[in-house]
């Protein structure tokens, strides 16, 4: 290669690099922000540090619970303001639950818990506040949900997902956020607990979170669902702070899942150490 050819080649390479770099820099077609991001100063934000755990069993709405016991116990049900169609579906789920044939969507370790079930899980939580967003982290799952507090709006053409799209703001020390674009149980893989409560892909949730004292977090969920509910459904959950120094570990749900769901019957299986089901009669 002579000198002229080398200069030409180098110049061409530089232009190519700049072009590709510019392309990556713009996120390959990523839209430019349609808003001016705003942040809340650190010193204006409350302290939600530490590790937290839900108070009470994983019955989603204990305020409307009938019967004693947990969500897998016969006779336990809740009373969301379902319309006739969704109430009938709930009754079918309860009947299956009573026969231990209602599969829990998260038992197969393949899908997220979804929202608002993310506020109804066992094991510890972290509530992480940043100036521009809030992260809801659960050990169980694990699950991650992001709430944007930087002034952006919901996308008008947002598609439905397990945790939807959450936009929030601070009212003093209370975080208020609205979650839309939830897929709900449209695909049969999201429920709120093991009594079989489900919501539709038209559900939205307005959440108000605040610390009521140094060791207690209150979460008030107002759930609306034009397909499934006759009126807004208000559910309050509480979380208590665990001792300082509590660790959270990774949760490889598929690491050694000896309780998969039998697709034919819906029964939760118990596998022996070699993977053979012990409870297919």
């Amino acid at each position: 290669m002579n000198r002229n050819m080398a200069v030409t080649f180098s110049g061409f390479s530089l232009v190519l690099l700049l072009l590709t770099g510019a392309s990556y820099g713009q996120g390959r077609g990523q839209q430019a922000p349609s808003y001016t991001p705003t942040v809340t100063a650190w010193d204006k934000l409350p302290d939600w540090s530490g590790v937290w755990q839900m108070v009470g069993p994983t019955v989603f709405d204990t305020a409307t619970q009938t019967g004693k016991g947990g969500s897998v116990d016969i006779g336990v049900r809740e009373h969301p303001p379902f319309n006739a169609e969704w109430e009938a579906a709930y009754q079918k789920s309860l009947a299956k639950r009573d026969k231990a044939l209602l599969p829990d969507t998260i038992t197969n370790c393949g899908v997220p818990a979804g929202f608002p079930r993310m506020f109804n899980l066992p094991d510890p939580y972290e509530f992480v506040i940043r100036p521009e967003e809030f992260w809801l982290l659960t050990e169980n799952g694990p699950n991650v949900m992001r709430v944007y507090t930087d002034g952006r709006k919901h996308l008008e053409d947002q598609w439905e997902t397990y945790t939807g799209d959450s936009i929030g703001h601070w009212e003093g020390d209370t975080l208020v956020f609205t979650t839309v674009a939830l897929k709900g149980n449209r695909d049969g893989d999201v429920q709120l607990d093991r009594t079989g409560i489900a919501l539709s892909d038209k559900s939205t949730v307005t959440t108000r979170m605040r610390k009521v004292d140094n060791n207690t977090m209150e979460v008030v969920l107002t759930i609306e669902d034009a397909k499934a509910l006759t009126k807004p459904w208000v559910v309050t959950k509480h979380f208590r702070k665990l001792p300082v120094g509590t660790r959270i570990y990774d949760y490889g749900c598929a690491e050694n899942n000896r309780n998969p769901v039998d697709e034919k019957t819906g029964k939760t299986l118990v596998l022996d150490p070699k993977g053979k089901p012990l409870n297919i009669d």
Partner: protein
Amino acid sequence: MNTVYKLALIALAIGAVLISVQPAAAHHSGAGFNSGTVVELKGTIKEFQFKNPHTWIQVMVPDATGKMTEWSLEWGSPNSLGRQGYRPTTFPPGAKVTVRLNPMRNGSPAGGFIAAKFEDGKVIGRWDDKISPSAGYNPEK
């Protein structure tokens, strides 16, 4: 130490014990196990599977003729147990144990772990007269 403080400590201790013997329900329904029946077995630890989403204690149990059967005892998540101080070494292979469990409803060699007692008397879980086969523990009756 005043009385109220003592009562609070007792309540905390009872709570800690109850948490430690919670059935394995965090990840799935425990409906396959009969929570109204307690079975006691003597055997040898084969393996302690300290893995998510639930731990499993594998115990080799001989019958009257000496034939060995491997039992699978399901316990809590390693994360939860780890926070309570348990470790993969909690059940060392080869250790002789007496275990109590809620058995499977269909009689298969598996169940929900309740408690274990080692040869040296060390106890893990809730080992008392109220939850034992000899007490005829059976809330379903």
